[in-house]
């Protein structure tokens, strides 16, 4: 596993700095220790938050870390990357008292970092049960699943097409939240459980699902999502337009020398209204780009990105252009038109540059009511903006990987999402389980972890109902 020492992300400081021990205890002592607490219910992995916070308050920091990791083996990266504002901290009862909610994310980071600094190993692989599970894609879903399977005594092998493990946890978390090095350190603890990873293994190239099915007792798919979606707009293929996810990955993992050109960016345009767009625009600001503009074809209220992230971006000086849509890319120039939303449909006010096909990329991915359909675009009047830019980042979604999985005809999809039984994350093929972005369409790390863990128990139950006398495995806490 090769990892660049000097990366552009190293220049980013923590947006939410770590707590000192004294600060952590002071904050922990504020917690009311709610019963059946709303914060637990808001956590996809169901961490017993009041319990771990109480343990910090009693200076039982090791116990606090165990409470967290028992529920979520990615407790460290979730502490740093979770949108706590809309999850645990958003549910904190203090919000109802007009008091600042408990800094749950920071406390979780404190507890887990403290335990990791002391090199406490909480888990050990269970006694081998002789069964093997292959996991495709080395992201949080696969590792959460593999960690659980190792405790249960399974042999696990993760196949990854890249050279680094962690998926978006390594390649995609905004560097002011977490550096890729933290992701790798966290994963190294899972690897110490005996999870094997084979790098450079890509589905349908040097890895076949059918082979995996015949060689392993079960297969877990944690492929995530594919490449950044490209808008169907004239001139889109040019040297100054990049996919946002791909650009963020470069900041996080590439050698700093390879990105020297980033220093010359004066004006950047980010296209999109989701959390990738918000991460990307804040990262550009953090890299020192003087003018960063986010253009979104709908209004502020319709943005799928988190409100708190947008507010932070605004404070950092990012400009938001709502109701605007790029229609033409020329040499270091983007032409945008004003849009309107009429009856939940996006319409543009410029006749000459917009064709319905411009919305194709979104069409295939988004299903919520109110999205445009082919033929919905009406153009009236004229309102064209011409913008000189050095960089355009497209944050208009990522491709779904449905086509990669056509070799197994049992697998079923709906709107690009692989269908599973939500209780055990089993697909329509009994030996194939799946979780993470591949099945949820792109949610948080914490969702992938929760699903991956449930899938592990689904696999365990499935294999133990099929094979006699193989249920010796037990949790080794």
């Amino acid at each position, binding site marked *: 596993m090769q990892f660049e020492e000097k990366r552009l992300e190293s220049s980013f400081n923590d947006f939410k700095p770590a707590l000192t021990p004294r600060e952590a205890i002071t904050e922990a002592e504020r917690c009311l220790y709610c019963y059946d607490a709303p914060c637990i219910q808001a956590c996809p992995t169901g961490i017993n938050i009041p319990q771990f916070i109480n343990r910090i308050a009693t200076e039982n920091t090791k116990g606090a870390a165990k409470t967290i990791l028992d529920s979520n083996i990615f407790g460290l990266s979730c502490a740093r990357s979770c949108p706590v504002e809309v999850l645990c901290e958003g*549910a904190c009862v*203090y919000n109802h*008292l007009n008091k600042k909610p408990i800094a749950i994310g920071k406390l979780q980071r404190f507890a887990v970092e403290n335990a990791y600094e002391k090199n406490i190993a909480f888990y050990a692989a269970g006694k081998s049960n002789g069964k093997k599970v292959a996991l495709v894609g080395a992201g949080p879903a696969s590792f959460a699943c593999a960690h659980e399977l190792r405790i249960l005594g399974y042999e696990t092998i993760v196949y990854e097409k890249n050279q680094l493990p962690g998926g978006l946890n390594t390649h995609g978390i905004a560097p002011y939240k977490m550096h890729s090095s933290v992701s790798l350190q966290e994963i190294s603890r899972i690897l110490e459980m005996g999870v094997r990873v084979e790098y450079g293994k890509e589905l349908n190239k040097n890895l076949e699902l059918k082979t995996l099915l015949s060689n392993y007792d079960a297969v877990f798919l944690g492929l995530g999502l594919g490449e950044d979606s490209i808008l169907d707009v004239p001139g889109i293929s040019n040297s100054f337009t990049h996919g946002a996810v791909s650009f963020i990955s470069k900041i996080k993992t590439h050698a700093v020398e390879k990105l020297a050109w980033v220093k010359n960016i004066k004006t950047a345009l980010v296209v999109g209204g989701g959390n990738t767009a918000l991460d990307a625009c804040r990262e550009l600001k953090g890299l020192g780009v003087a003018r960063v503009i986010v253009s979104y074809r709908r209004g502020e209220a319709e943005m799928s990105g988190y409100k708190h992230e947008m507010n932070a971006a605004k404070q950092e000086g990012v400009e938001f252009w709502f109701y605007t849509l790029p229609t033409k890319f020329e040499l270091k120039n983007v032409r945008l038109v004003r849009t309107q939303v009429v009856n939940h449909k996006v319409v543009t006010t410029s006749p000459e540059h917009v064709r319905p096909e411009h919305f194709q990329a979104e069409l295939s991915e988004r299903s919520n009511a109110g999205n445009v359909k082919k033929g919905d675009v009406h153009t009236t009047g004229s309102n064209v903006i011409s913008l000189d830019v050095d960089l355009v980042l497209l944050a208009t979604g990522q491709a779904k990987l449905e086509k990669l999985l056509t070799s197994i005809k049992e697998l079923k999809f709906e709107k690009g999402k692989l269908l*599973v039984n*939500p*209780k055990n994350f089993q697909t329509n093929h009994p030996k194939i389980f799946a979780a993470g972005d591949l099945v*949820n369409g792109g949610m948080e790390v914490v969702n992938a972890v929760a699903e991956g863990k449930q899938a592990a128990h689904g696999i365990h139950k499935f294999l133990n109902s099929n094979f006699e006398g193989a249920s010796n495995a037990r949790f080794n806490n």
Partner: protein
Amino acid sequence: MPDLTTSFLGIKTPNPFWLASAPPTNTGSQVMRAFEAGWGGAVWKTLGKPIQNVSSRFGGLDHMGKKIIGFNNIELITDRSIEINLKEMEEVKKRYPKNTLVASLMVESREEWREIIAQVEGVGADALELNFGCPHGMCERGMGSAVGQEPKLLKTIAGWAKEFSKVPVIVKLTPNITDVTVPAQAARDGGADAVSLINTIKSLIGVDLDQFVPYPTVAGKSTNGGYCGPAVKPIALHMVAAIARQQNNAFPISGIGGVSSWKDAVEFFLLGATTVQVCTAVMHYGYRIIEDMLQGLSDYMDEKGFKSVNEMVGKAIPNFTDWGSLDLNYHQVAVIHEEHCIGCNLCVVACDDGGHQCITPGKNGKKAPDSVSSEQQPFSHLHPSRSRLHRSVSDLHPINPPAVKSQAVHAPVVHEPECVGCNLCMLVCPAPGAITMQQAPKPSLSLH
């Protein structure tokens, strides 16, 4: 604005707030600064035979981020010479003639009492306080609480003091006894004019978990100390009230123990004290706390129509009675007000585990009657309807983001027939006004 001048043992004290005999009254310059700040009186740090103090001397009890809710000391009486103390007392009395200066004394023999009383009266002390309370160090030498725990001895020495003194004599009582009314009666029988209480409670404030030595540590060893501060107030209130009740409010009391605010002081007044003495709060925050105490007391008296502190002394004593005299037919129940509830469910767990199992969570809660708790799976909130409804392997679904949760709080529900009106839920509730107790018709059973 009411006059805070208070009459106590014939002394007109500018206000009922005195500093207790302790480190804040160790020197003349301290006491003068305290009077300047507004304190009505000061009981000088106890005088006696020369002693030497140890280092360290203090320990604090912190709780959930709040510093010094209780305080412990192993300091003895003054470690300065009697001559210096007398000179400074004289100077203070000369400069602040209106403020009350009380001399705290602790010696052994009749002759020593005669001598020291003459000395402090000579420098203008307005009253004497006999320290029969100190529970550490001095009691090992037959003084302090060793006297306070022996009613006969207490009565004898109080009698000596009365015999030798021209000014009023206050006996400071130790709480380290079974029934405080016994030494109080002994003090009265000995001729004392008043009692002051409580002195500190014998204590170990904590233990160093690494060195295995209790706190405070003196060269690797420790000893029991005296405990005071906000945490001892309930013990002090009870002892003050017990004496006031037994003596029919006819034996003056100076209340001591955890007084940190005007509210604490009013509680002592209502239970029979005429003045209060303060130490820990001043050691923590300084003399400046007197400003709020004076203002708060004054406003309270205005609001209630009291013209003087003496008017409110013992007001609550008629309502302090034996358990057997309580009305068994009175019944109240908890009422939860959803508009103030924040959904912490602390009342639920408290009532379940420490109460009478009569509060259940609101409709969103785990244990709500209409939920299917036995079928709930971990993480089922990810897709709540599906995890319950679909069980077979072939049930395939896209995993969608959870619906945005409503911010509305569903308040827990009190099942009134089971509620005994114990109060616990209201006490643990962190949301002001969310739980109140309301009178309700008595359930059928009654002990009477």
